[in-house]
C-alpha cells in the first residue's frame, strides 16, 4: 500500500493505492490517526487505486471516524471501487461513513 497526502485549497486528501491488509494497516493507522490527532477536517480519503481491503483496514477507518467524531471533524471516503463498496455495504458501514463519488464531489460538499 502507498499513501499520498496532498492539499486541495487547504483541504487534505489522502490517496491510497494497493492492498490494505493486516500487514499494511498499522502504517495506515499511524498516518490516519496522526491527521485525526491534528484535528484535520475535512479529511478526504481517496480509494480509487485501492485493490484490496480486509477487516483490519475497515477497522482502521472506523477508528479514524470515531476520532473525528470526538471533535466534530469530518472523514469523507471517495471513489470506492465496487468490490470494496460491497464490503462497506455488507458490514452496514455505508450508512455510517460519509461517502462521495469523487474527490471533487467531496471537496464541493
Amino acid at each position: 500500500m502507498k499513501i499520498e497526502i496532498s492539499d486541495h485549497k487547504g483541504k487534505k486528501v489522502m490517496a491510497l493505492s494497493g492492498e490494505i491488509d493486516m500487514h499494511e494497516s498499522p502504517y495506515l493507522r499511524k498516518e490516519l490517526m496522526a491527521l485525526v490527532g491534528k484535528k484535520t477536517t475535512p479529511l478526504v480519503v481517496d480509494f480509487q487505486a485501492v485493490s484490496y481491503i480486509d477487516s483490519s483496514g475497515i477497522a482502521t477507518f472506523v477508528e479514524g471516524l470515531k476520532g473525528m467524531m470526538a471533535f466534530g471533524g469530518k472523514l469523507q471516503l471517495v471513489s470506492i471501487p465496487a468490490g470494496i463498496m460491497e464490503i462497506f455495504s455488507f458490514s452496514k458501514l455505508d450508512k455510517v461513513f460519509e461517502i462521495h463519488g469523487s474527490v471533487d464531489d467531496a471537496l464541493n460538499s
Partner: protein
Amino acid sequence: MTLPWWNWHGTALPDMKGAVSITIPSHPKYLSVVRALTSRMAELADMPGPEVDKIRLAVDEACSNVIKYAYKGDTGRKIVVKFRVIRTGFEVVIEDTGEKTDPSFIAGRDLDDVRPGGLGIHLIKRAFDVFGFDEKKKKGNRLRLIRYKRGNNEN
C-alpha cells in the same frame, strides 16, 4: 451454519488427495501470498468471479485470526492452508499449532453496533457454507471451510 466435524456432507470425510497445500510463517507479510494462491485455486474450482473475491477475503481473515488469536501475534510459527477442488465445490482447511480455539467464543459483532473489529467472522461465514473446527485435532486448530457450488439461479 456450523456443522459438526463428522457431518460435513452427511457422510464420510473427504480425503485431501489431489489437494494443494501451502505452509507459511505466521507473519502478516505472507498473507498476500495466501491470497494469490486462494484466488487461483478458487478459479480452478470454477467459482464465479465475485465469489473468488469473497473467498480470497475470507481465507485472509481466517489466517489473520490464527496470527492474532492462536499465535497471539507470534510471527515465527507456521500456518498450513490446504485447498481442494471437490465435486460439490471448494474446500479450504487451515491448520495451526497454537492455542486451542474455543468455538463457542467465536462470534462476530452485531453489525449494527459500529466499532472497530468483529467483522472477520462475518466475512468468512458469508463466503463459506461450512465453518467448523476439527475437535479431534490434538495440538492446535484445524478450521475447515467449504463453499458449495450453486445452481444457476441460486446465490
